[in-house]
């Protein structure tokens, strides 16, 4: 076999027929059937075209995983010059059995906020990746990175240099600031209460050093959702959920409202808008819905149903929810309100948000344990001590109800 140093050069063997490069993988072949697009077929076709031994080895190892119901990758410390994260090391634990798969590292690459692309950028990235790596790209990893999956350590720096010259940078890994996520935002959504793309861009640029050089207790994730529909799943999936909200009144387009009612009928209005308002803040007056904005909790339901007629108010900003995370280790947690409303329009607003985020991270760095997310630190120390530590004013919006437990130290 003629695999080169990078394991990524095509194997040139004139006698190989079409579809003769791969070894049989009968269990994986079952996943080529059915109507949903098959990742196996995609990888197999890529392998047959490019004849990269690394891809063949990975498919063989994957088939073996299916047979034995066991994973065979282990981590390590591959990185690029000056960075401590961004490359996810993968070495085969059974490289003696599948030598072609012995290295299969991933580059995490930060996409543009909102996951917007033009085809030139994406084609260039594909060309670079096919040259240096396997040609498999996950769009996207669960944190929101472009995952360039499958490269040998010897090629990593050269590949990174090339994509970095094209304007891309690596994402986070380990106990570090992680790649951010933002919804489509004002680019294509009428609900966006702030510019999610710009704020994502500015905030993550500020923390870029902390992405590349892990120095936190554990990971820290920002997610930016333009409205409470929370399309980035920020409450459960980020340490700092930045959710667009308004604090004046829902805007009503009277003509569009009448047209909506004429089209959908009174029954639909009552059953699916008025009755579904979680705080009963909508009532019917002269056959028109009237909103009690003081009792509106900004859930978005009526706006979602009547998007042509209703829209978020004019005085817009964000609510901040801190501490969301998934299972490990104290159980899943949703972020909870730490700032009910702040403006997020001007450079100064964004700078104030970055300052606040920085002081929260500093507090967490001082008070958290190793491998403890900020939500877990607050759970252990108490929200009250967090507010004192960071200097945030208390608000009743931070709780669903005041304490019912009488055991506490009064400040009286």
């Amino acid at each position, binding site marked *: 076999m003629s695999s080169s140093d990078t394991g990524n050069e095509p194997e040139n063997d004139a006698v190989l027929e079409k579809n003769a490069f791969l070894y049989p993988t009968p269990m994986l072949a079952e996943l080529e059937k059915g109507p949903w697009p098959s990742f196996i077929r995609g990888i197999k076709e890529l392998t047959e075209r490019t004849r990269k031994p690394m891809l063949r080895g990975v498919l063989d190892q994957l088939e073996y995983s299916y047979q034995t119901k066991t994973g065979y990758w282990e981590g390590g410390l591959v990185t690029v010059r000056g960075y401590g994260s961004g490359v996810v090391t993968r070495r085969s634990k059974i490289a003696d059995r599948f030598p072609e798969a012995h290295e299969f590292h991933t580059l995490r690459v930060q996409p543009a906020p909102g996951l917007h692309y033009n085809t030139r950028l994406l084609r260039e990235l594909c060309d670079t990746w096919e040259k240096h790596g396997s040609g498999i*790209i996950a769009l996207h990893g669960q944190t929101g990175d472009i995952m360039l999956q499958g490269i040998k350590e010897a090629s990593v720096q050269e590949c990174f240099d090339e994509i970095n010259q094209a304007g891309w940078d690596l994402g986070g890994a380990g106990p570090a600031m992680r790649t951010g996520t933002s919804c489509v935002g004002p680019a294509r959504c009428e609900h966006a209460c702030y510019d999610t793309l710009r704020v994502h861009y500015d905030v993550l*640029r500020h923390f870029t050093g902390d992405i590349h050089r892990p120095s936190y207790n554990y990971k820290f994730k920002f997610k930016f959702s333009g409205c409470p529909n929370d399309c980035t799943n920020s409450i459960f999936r980020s340490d700092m959920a930045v959710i667009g909200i308004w604090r004046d009144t829902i805007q009503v387009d009277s003509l569009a409202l009448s047209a909506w009612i004429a089209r959908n009928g009174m029954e639909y209005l009552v059953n699916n808008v008025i009755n579904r308002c979680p705080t009963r803040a909508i009532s019917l007056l002269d056959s028109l819905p009237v909103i009690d904005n003081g009792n509106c909790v900004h859930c978005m339901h009526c706006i979602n149903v009547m998007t042509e007629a209703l829209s978020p108010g004019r005085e817009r900003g964000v609510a901040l929810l801190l501490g969301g995370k998934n299972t490990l280790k104290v159980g899943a947690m949703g972020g909870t309100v730490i700032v009910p409303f702040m403006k997020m329009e001007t450079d100064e607003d964004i700078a104030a948000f970055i300052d606040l985020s920085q002081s929260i991270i500093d507090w967490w760095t001082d008070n958290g344990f190793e491998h403890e997310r900020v939500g877990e630190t607050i759970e252990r120390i108490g929200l009250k001590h967090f507010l004192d530590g960071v200097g945030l004013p208390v608000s009743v919006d931070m709780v669903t109800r005041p304490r019912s437990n009488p055991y506490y130290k009064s400040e009286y």
Partner: protein
Amino acid sequence: MSDKIPWKTVESGPRDYREALHPVVQKNYGAWKSHVIPKPGVLKHTAFSGDVLYTVRAGTPRQDSVDLIRKICDIADKYADGYLRFTMRNNVELMTADESNVEPMIRALEAIGLPVGGIGPCITNMAHTQGWLHCDIPATDASGVVKSVMDNLYEYFTNWRLPAKVRLSTSCCAINCGGQTDIAIIVKHTRPPRVNHEILATTCELPKVVARCPVAAIRPTVVNGRPSLLVDPAKCMYCGACFGACPVMEISHPEHSKIGVWVGGKNSNARSKPAMGCLVAQNLPNNPPRWPEVNAVVRRILEVYAGEGKPWERIGEWIDRVGWKHFFAATGLEFEKDMIDNYRNARTTFNQSAHIRF
């Protein structure tokens, strides 16, 4: 390699998004008025300027080849002015101002094997994790589970047959990278980690591993004269947190790592507050390559919800209305003792009332 550094890294952070925005998007940035969903997989946005923008959404396998991405780019060049975006849940979206591009774009996407759908009262593409293809912790192959489930539920992606949207996810371990969703398929280990005492002390930092355990089940010991760690099987609840700190405490097991199904997770604030999924089926076999037992449970839940849910009611909201007793009866799933929480905050899940259905 020479000592000369060929390129000095630019720590640029996220890619600049401005060059990646469709021209109609740039023109109407922040000035959209409303949208409608003319058919499954298609959005029509209207701007205050009067401009209209159509979006076509298609599911992708997430684990894409450069060839597939180039084919999508070809379609974007032909029908979407050379721009595209992706959603959080592995769908690709192509935008055009020209209504006459919509149908040809749908056909072109379908011709390269990408189904159009996932917008409106239907299932979305599944959020999922890396699995055996690439992760170092997985007990199953999320990509394979997803392929099997989406094959099985294909018509629910491309058609509107549900009361509201249903988000799905798959996670290969208890860390649950897939997140909180309406129906979540999540690995659950059922045995303590298997400790390799021969190499543990030379591979792992012992105090770090002890500290990682949420139930203090790990303590130092000496085995055959070597320092190592002991796992108290009575305390251990098989979460696998120690494996992250110490890969010689093997938690995944080919037979004893099982699959559970959790329902009612929700991220949106619409109507009800965001909610976490609840365990409704457990100890399903991890059965590649097609996971038929998991598929049967997911399909059953979806079919009952399709028949009983009211418009706009997510799965968790439907169950809130009809009650868990009815959910288990209607789906034929069994409420088991292990479905009573016994961890932190368990009491908040107990029925502290006389509200009981008969």
